[in-house]
């Protein structure tokens, strides 16, 4: 992929397109929603200030940047006790709050690498190749993580999904 320099408008569009999914992704690392939001904002503000040359798919770059920022924050604040996060992760288009909570709890139960794959694929619309790029694994590994995650979610959410028929 050719190197590209992101303009301020590109960064804004990326925020609109991936901000919500990145926040969801960051909640897997951060103590609460505010901390997760700070991580995402930090990455985008840094992008606006420095405008680095991005060699990979911008979405993959963003996910890696958020993960790095989260790991740095965890190292710096390792002695702080996390507060319970009571904020809902999702809203359902049809207003089904019960299913939204079930999905939140199912996602939280997934191993981190499987959760990452689902978030990137479903809510950021990334291809499995981009997921592989963002997570630094071969495409086959990314694909199998995604399939496993989907299988587990389907099992847990079966009563809510009503896919049969």
């Amino acid at each position: 992929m050719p190197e590209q320099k992101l303009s301020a408008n590109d960064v804004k569009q990326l925020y609109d397109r991936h901000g919500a999914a990145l926040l969801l992704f960051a909640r897997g690392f951060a103590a609460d929603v505010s901390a997760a939001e700070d991580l995402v904002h930090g990455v985008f503000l840094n992008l606006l200030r420095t405008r680095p040359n991005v060699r990979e798919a911008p979405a993959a770059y963003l996910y890696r940047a958020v993960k790095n920022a989260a790991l740095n924050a965890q190292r710096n604040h390792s002695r702080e006790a996390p507060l319970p996060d009571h904020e809902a992760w999702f809203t359902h288009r049809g207003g089904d709050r019960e299913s939204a909570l079930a999905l939140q709890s199912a996602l939280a139960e997934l191993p981190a690498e499987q959760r990452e794959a689902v978030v990137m694929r479903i809510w950021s619309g990334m291809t499995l190749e981009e997921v592989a790029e963002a997570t630094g694994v071969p495409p086959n590994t990314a694909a199998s993580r995604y399939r496993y995650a989907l299988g587990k979610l389907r099992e847990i959410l079966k009563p809510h999904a009503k896919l049969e028929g």
Partner: protein
Amino acid sequence: MNDDRKFEAFLREFEPRSPRPLPQAKTLSRSWPRLAAAAALILAVGGVSLWIGRHHIQTNQRDGQPPALSVTGAAANQQQPISTISLTRAALEGSPDFDRELDDMSRRSLPRFDRKDSMLRVLAKE
């Protein structure tokens, strides 16, 4: 495969909570025109004030009026600014010139009373 597609579509019915709007980044590229404008304005105001001041003094001298009373050494300071750099350097180097420079600076910055038109002398007379 078809089931996967249906389940993916089901998952997409859930929208992750959006983050707050991105705070405005105070980038240099955006703020420099304002800084340049502010600097130009300060320079212009300073220049005009200086010109008016000089013009006023010249007019008074031409009309034969005595110059305004010198209240403090501030006017002298404007012409001869205190060199904090050389003072600091002298202090750091422990130079013997430091005391002398400090004395000179005090003489320049404190009110003078040995001139006929000094404010202290005028006040003392009253």
